[in-house]
């Protein structure tokens, strides 16, 4: 592997030789990069704006039952979700999601870490895990409904069962991938097992854990809706299905839009958290690329 010194070229090496000029190789200066970020943000959204405008204009005179004018959908969206009380459905969905996702994340990281720590047990358990993992959780719905009945706990169970896997398997994979030299370093420093996990293993596996959590987030949202479509008397999924059944197609679209908005906000929040948690990783990768 070429060293960073070799890759970054002479200026940095020179800095190492002359102590008075020691300067870390930092990223580009701030004002320029924030301007560029603003521009790239605008650039990324323009097409989205075009699609929205096109939708608005093209659907304005629509008489189709299934594709009502966007203006009507937005109006209903305001009436139902902002002025009206449909938002209780959103709260109910989000509550289930929050509990289910949190449990899936905790179980995923916890069990993944245990499978890593007790590798022998892990090897015996892994085939079973992968076998269960490939069962589409939607297929388990009838079984879970039969066992748990209908209600919040069943919906949360579905979310946990589906969303736990990406986090668990990514945690296991990330921890297995920790450089053995880092573990040697921990041993040389006499770290306790707990401190080794906290200081070395967990941060080292964090890029992969975050990737797993992100995937779990998407699956969690999907299962939140699926569980409400199949067996529920509240929630956004229930709202959409119920609207469709009484031919309130415009209302149905508002539910779908609310879902899209919730999904976007959750993803946005996740990325924001990831930028903080993985700041070191993103920075190191940028240095590597530049080198």
């Amino acid at each position: 592997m070429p060293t960073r010194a070799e890759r970054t070229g002479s200026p940095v090496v020179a800095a190492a030789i002359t102590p008075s000029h020691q300067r870390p190789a930092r990223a580009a200066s701030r004002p320029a990069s924030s301007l560029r970020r603003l521009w790239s943000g605008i650039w990324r959204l323009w097409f989205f704006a075009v699609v929205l405008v096109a939708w608005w204009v093209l659907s304005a005179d629509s008489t189709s039952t299934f594709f009502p004018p966007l203006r009507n959908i937005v109006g209903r969206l305001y009436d139902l979700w902002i002025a009206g009380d449909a938002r209780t459905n959103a709260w109910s969905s989000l509550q289930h999601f929050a509990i289910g996702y949190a449990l899936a994340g905790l179980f995923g990281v916890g069990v993944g870490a245990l499978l890593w720590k007790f590798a022998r047990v892990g090897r015996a358990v892994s085939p079973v895990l992968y076998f269960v993992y490939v069962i589409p959780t939607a297929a388990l719905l009838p079984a879970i409904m039969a066992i748990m009945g209908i209600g919040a706990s069943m919906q949360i169970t579905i979310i946990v069962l589906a969303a736990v896997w990406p986090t668990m398997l990514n945690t296991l994979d990330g921890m297995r991938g920790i450089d053995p030299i880092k573990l040697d370093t921990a041993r040389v420093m006499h770290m306790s097992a707990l401190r080794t996990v906290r200081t070395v293993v967990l941060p080292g596996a964090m890029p992969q854990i975050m990737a797993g959590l992100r995937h779990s987030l998407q699956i969690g949202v999907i299962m939140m809706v699926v569980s409400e479509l199949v067996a529920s008397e509240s929630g956004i999924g229930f709202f959409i299905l119920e609207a469709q059944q009484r031919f309130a197609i415009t209302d149905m679209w508002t539910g779908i839009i609310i879902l899209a908005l919730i999904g976007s906000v959750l993803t946005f929040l996740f990325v924001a958290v990831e930028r903080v948690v993985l700041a070191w990783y993103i920075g190191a990768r940028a240095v590597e690329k530049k080198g």
Partner: protein
Amino acid sequence: MSPLANQEVSPASTTAAAATAPVLSVRNVEKAYNVGRPDEKLAIADVSFDVAKGEFVCVVGPSGAGKTTILRCLSGLLPPTSGEVRFEDARLQDVPDRLSVVFQDYSRSLFPWLTVNKNVAVPLKVAGVGKQEREDRIRTVLHAVGLGDVGTSYPWQLSGGMQQRVAIARALAHQPDMLLMDEPFASVDAQTRFDLEDLILEVRRQLDITVVLVTHDIDEAVYLSDRVVVLSGAPSRIAEIVDVPLGRPRNQLTTRSSETFGRLRSHLMQLVTTA
């Protein structure tokens, strides 16, 4: 056999050091991998040597001679198949408290998720050193390795040579009696390598610690050591233990161009290539 006159600044420390009890004692160490399996492989056949307090010993050998294996046995990271390693009069079970290791590849041993300060703080936190003293020691030790104002940077923001300095600082932070180094300068360019060699000599002089350094670079071994342990090819045995009667402090230019240096160098070269 007399080194150049201008190097005789201080008498060679070997004679004084040899009188005291060895700080590290390697007795008939043998190491085999995959014992009892068809792919059993003997890496180290029989290696014995002593390291006196304050001594600087380099271990060299042809590539594939099990140099890293030896170092891992010396550090307690790897139990020998037979024989024993004693450190400060106790048989090595795990990595001893008063011993530190610097690995070859700083990018693998430093924690990229921690800043330089926090990297150096880790062994101090493990040892339960209080916050105030921790900060003092971090400052002292970073200063000792010639790093000034980089504490809040991340390792990957620094050049290779600076990163290895951080790794050395971290190894020195809890004030070990002995430093084991596994090809510590192999991943940096030639000029940085010279700087780091002089740095480690200076650090050793100031802190009065014992250093065992594994390298494949014969010039480096001669330049740094009081004695050079030459390993044979795998499975390794001791080919010869060579005294280095060069004065200290050493100088990259004059020491390396001295007649003694050249003679030792060709002697070692011969040992390593024919071993």
